């Protein structure tokens, strides 16, 4: 096609028969492909509609406004059996989001620690990290979830004989119960003070950078920021009369009542996904750091830069360029693996959707909702990571 275009760009096609024109041929084959695709899609959709009609199955998304009639054990937003199916799906979505985000954060932290540990000169740390990676990388995630659920959390004491930790935290096979803070009148000022402190910290950091670039003088950023972020809200908190109380869990007839409870379903899924994905992240981190040529470190040392600064300013920024793209895949994997929640009864999007599917029989609609939500989540994660990657990428001048 390209040859024809370069030979006679303004004419649009070369001399000779129209059949031999590469451009016409290209358009022809693409049109054929599109037509086949369109017919195929039409056939699938028409077939589905016809079969649904034949089986007397009502279709459409109207069911999301009907009363759900069932309860959900773990919900961060208000939900009762009188709520709608749509609300139930939202509960599932929020639960998926929570386990994905907390899992990603934890997996990243563990992954970086283990990945750096594998490069350690300390033999024990290096071998322990290696063992960690090989164990968790080679076990299916479902088994890791069962390990945490049945092997660790289920053997904890019964709720009535819960282990009592400091600060009124109770651990039992029903999960971890801890005091729930109740914010009283005026606590919004403390939050406001915290936000102001964070904003101020950013400005100070920028000022310090500019100051250093201009004069070479370093401003003690860390201590100032710490003082601001902790001190300012603390002073506000005390000044407004410490408007905070706690709802402490108390042993009830069956369970601990009051306080907040994180159930074993969430914990096992969260821990399993974090530990499993961390094994892969560790390898990515190791590869990233190894991928930075040794000459870079040596050059930095030759310039008299201290080892710690060399790592922070020379090695890590270059390693990040190698790490970020595969890291994105791991984040996507973790999000999608969270649908294994169904095995331990965590009310994620798939578990709640499955219940709705069973109760309403709206299989196609529920499955399409799953597809769209996971696709959206994954694309959003990708977009964010691509943006971050672009920021970290080598700036070529």
């Amino acid at each position, binding site marked *: 096609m390209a040859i024809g275009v370069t030979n006679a760009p303004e004419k649009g096609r070369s001399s000779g028969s129209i059949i031999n024109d590469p451009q016409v041929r290209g358009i022809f084959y693409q049109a054929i492909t599109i037509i086949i695709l369109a017919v195929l899609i039409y056939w699938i959709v028409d077939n589905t509609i016809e079969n649904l009609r034949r089986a007397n199955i009502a279709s459409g998304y109207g069911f999301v406004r009907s009363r759900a009639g069932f309860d959900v054990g773990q919900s961060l937003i208000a939900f009762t059996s009188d709520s709608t199916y749509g609300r139930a799906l939202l509960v599932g979505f929020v639960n998926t989001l929570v386990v994905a985000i907390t899992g990603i954060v934890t997996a990243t932290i563990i992954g970086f620690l283990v990945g750096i540990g594998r490069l350690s000169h300390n033999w024990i740390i290096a071998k322990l990290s290696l063992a960690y990676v090989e164990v968790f990388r080679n076990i299916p995630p479902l088994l890791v979830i069962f390990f945490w659920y049945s092997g660790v959390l289920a053997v904890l004491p019964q709720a009535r004989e819960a282990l009592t930790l400091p600060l009124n935290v109770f651990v039992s096979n029903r999960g971890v119960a801890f005091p729930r803070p109740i914010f009283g009148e005026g606590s919004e000022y403390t939050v406001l003070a915290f936000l102001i402190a964070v904003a101020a910290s950013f400005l100070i950091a920028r000022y310090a950078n500019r100051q250093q670039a201009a004069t070479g003088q370093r401003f003690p950023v860390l201590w100032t920021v710490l003082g601001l972020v902790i001190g300012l809200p603390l002073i506000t908190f005390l000044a407004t009369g410490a408007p905070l109380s706690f709802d402490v869990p108390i042993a009830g007839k069956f369970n601990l009542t009051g306080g907040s409870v994180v159930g074993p379903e969430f914990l096992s899924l969260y821990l399993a996904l974090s530990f499993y994905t961390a094994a892969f992240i560790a390898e990515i981190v190791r590869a990233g750091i190894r991928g930075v040529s040794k000459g870079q470190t040596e050059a930095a040392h030759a310039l008299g830069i201290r080892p710690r600064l060399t790592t922070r300013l020379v090695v890590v920024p270059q390693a990040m360029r190698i790490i970020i793209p595969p890291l994105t895949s791991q984040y996507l994997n973790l999000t999608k693996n969270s649908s294994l929640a*169904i095995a331990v009864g965590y009310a994620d999007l798939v578990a709640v959707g499955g219940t709705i599917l069973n109760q309403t029989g709206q299989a196609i609609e529920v499955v399409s909702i799953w597809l769209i939500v996971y696709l959206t989540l994954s694309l959003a994660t990708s977009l964010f990571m691509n943006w971050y990657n672009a920021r970290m990428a080598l700036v070529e001048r």
Partner: protein
Amino acid sequence: MARRILTALVGAAVMGIGAHAASAATLDDVKAKGFIQCGVNTGLAGFSAPDASGNWTGFDVDYCKAVAAAVFGDASKVKYTPLSAKERFPALQSGEVDLLARNTTWSINRDTALGFNFRPVNYYDGQGFMVRKELNVKSALELSGAAVCVQTGTTTELNLADYFKSNNLQYNPVVFEKLEEVNAAYDAGRCDVYTTDQSGLYALRLTLSKPDDHMILPEIISKEPLAPAVRQGDDQWFDIVSWTHFALIQAEEFGITQANVEEMKKSTNPDVQRFLGVEADSKIGTDLGLTNEWAVNIIKAVGNYGEVFDRNIGTGSPLKIERGLNALWNKGGIQYAPPIR
């Protein structure tokens, strides 16, 4: 389009088979092949499960045997088809089985849309609760604040939500997709309460690590009438299955047992004489399409309803289910046979 044509063909084929099976007399078919093909549960302790030597035993299995005894005078002329919950209806619709005795709830949808005839109810079941004895709970109304294990996507889950809501009780549902997962979670103490059909609870309790530590609460929060089912449109076969059940009930009411049935034939009570087919010119059995010995054969094969119940799921079995609603009508239950005359 090919798919649509295929669907249509399969649909037509199924309809054809259904129509054929409905029009043919099942009794004649059964007599011709010499045995009854009976659909049973793949394994539910007390209802239908193979024993150590591979013979099917249980409450539902005894119903298959009773019908075989009524038809052939020989309870062994039964072949069993173990069916899962999903397989059971197509198996009966297609004529693969002659009789479905598989702890199946009678509902209007199954009676009409699926084209079956249910009746009579041989076991009145309902959703119940199981708890640990150490909790000292005597009633489901004391369960506020409990964690409840339940299988997801079932009517059980909906009944549970409705019951706790209407009684203003708080609870924390712990839901799983598979029955085995619910069992394991309850056994591990993840929840305080297990809810499903009450007969299922009794069967399940046997599989727990310490069955005696658990008790089943008296409350029943839903109606689950379990009944044998046959295809719609064959009234003769439907009558035979129905009256086999009523004969079992009537035998218990008369006090006729497997042991004393021969002796009872000499009874001077005209009702008993008529029932056992020893009355002069009796036509009850032949009107059913069977012999006049039909009731005697049933009782000889499996005993009366009370004996069937006790042996498989009642006091004489490991399940130890109380008669409750399944006691005779004159003993506080609702098992009742129309007059056999």
